[in-house]
């Protein structure tokens, strides 16, 4: 007993460090501005957002030909969580093609998105009716990575289907005559991010 005591005390002093480093009293209580580590759930699984049950969608009714000022088009996309982890999503998008800048400069193409909206009307007069506005009057710029819906939507649980999103593109009624005959392509990207 007496022989091991002095050596033991040094180790015991050092071992007090475990209390300093590991105990919730030592490390967590004074850390109040961040999420406490207790209660953290670990996630494994996959994340898979699908639009209309697909991983890449080709629009069928958002395109317009012979657009005159005031022309509109609409299409509904169904968002689904086909993975095993919950997610929220954001939307980016904009214009491409040689005339993209001309449309963007004139703020000629605008996008509304409404949740639970339905498409009504035909041709260049199709619109979204009903539902709740997600974004209104977003001017499409010549940057296909521009933010369209920056506020995270959802979350969507695994297997859940979100509110159908009705996209509504408007060719401004004050679009300048210089845009006659010009064409731009539009691309949107819906990006899911796993929820913390």
């Amino acid at each position, binding site marked *: 007993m007496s022989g091991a005591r002095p050596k*033991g*005390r040094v*180790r*015991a*002093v*050092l*071992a*007090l*460090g*475990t*209390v*300093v*480093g*590991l*105990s919730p009293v*030592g*490390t967590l209580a*004074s850390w109040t501005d*961040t999420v406490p*580590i207790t209660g*953290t759930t*670990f*996630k*494994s699984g*996959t*994340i898979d957002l*699908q*639009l209309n049950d*697909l991983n890449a*969608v*080709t*629009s*069928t009714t958002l395109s*317009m*030909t*012979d*657009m*005159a*000022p*005031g022309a509109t088009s609409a299409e509904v996309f169904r968002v689904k969580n086909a993975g095993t*982890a919950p997610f929220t999503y*954001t939307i*980016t998008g904009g214009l491409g093609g040689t005339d993209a800048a001309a449309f963007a400069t004139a703020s000629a*193409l605008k996008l509304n998105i409404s949740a639970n909206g339905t498409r009504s009307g035909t041709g260049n007069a199709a619109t979204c009716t009903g539902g709740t506005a997600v974004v209104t009057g977003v001017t499409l710029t010549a940057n296909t990575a521009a*933010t369209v819906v920056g506020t995270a939507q959802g979350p969507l649980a695994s297997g859940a289907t979100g509110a159908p999103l009705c996209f509504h*593109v408007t060719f401004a009624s004050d679009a*300048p*005559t210089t845009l006659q*005959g010009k*064409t*731009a*392509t539009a*691309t*949107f*990207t*819906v*990006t899911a991010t*796993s*929820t*913390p």
Partner: protein
Amino acid sequence: MTEHRLLRVLREVALTAGAVVGTLCLVFTLLSATVGVRPLVFTSGSMAPVIETGDLAVTRPVELARLEPGDVASVIDDRGVRITHRVVEVDAARNMLRLKGDANQTADPLPYTADGADLVLFSVPAGGYVLTWLAGPTATMLLGAYLVFLLWVLWPRGSASRRAVSTAAALVLVVGLAAGGTSAPQPTAAAWTDAVPINGISQAAYTVPKPVITNCTATPQLGQSAVTVTWSAVSSPYALTYRAVVTQTGQVLTVTGTGSTRSARYPTARLNLNGTQTIEITAALPSTPSWTSVPATQTVGIALLGLLPSCGASS
């Protein structure tokens, strides 16, 4: 005797293991207080296979300018969630940072705005699970029991040197508890992302078609001399309106006719001038009159003070 020996072995193991772990903790706490080194627990797996769910990473705060593409950095996004992904692009001048999870096919949708970020120095597989367990109630109780054991070992038994050792231990504990706050492990979502594109959208603006002049008739008749220009209405999804103007004078001519053929009559009889004039025909959108076509033109010759008009070239 054997029981006593077993207890002694247990005591030795507990002290030695505790001393090793405790020294690591003290070193870490010291680094945490001085350099800002901080543990991160990964709660999801978008940095797989380099960093898996439940791994523990050790980070150090750096300025954005010191980050390079390829580094793994941790930032707090605008929702207050800590994200740890690989750096794709750094714009230190604008305090912007783009990140991408190794297991994600695309970069995170939005750039992060930050003065600095926490650079991941290294990671310990499954270390996060261990740390999280340590922060739980079971581990807290065990740690408390261990603390009692340590105090028992250190408890002074009369001699001055023993009292000094225990005072030092108490000091280490107090100082350590005060400094320890900086090293709290934080959960980080190495968030997965999945991007779905919507393609095939083409927005083509209408071109108002140029009218096609089909006929021009000059009528030399005393007192009623005139030129009549006729053009065909081009097929259009819109009910186009037409306008005929004499370029030189600005005189607007009345357009007559409906359907596929329109015409405009230019009375020339009382014009006391000679020479060539041009009639411009333009089509326009009914809803947006500023959207006009390229003009079709018809030149008109006027002789004998308007008594003898004639049709010239048209385009």
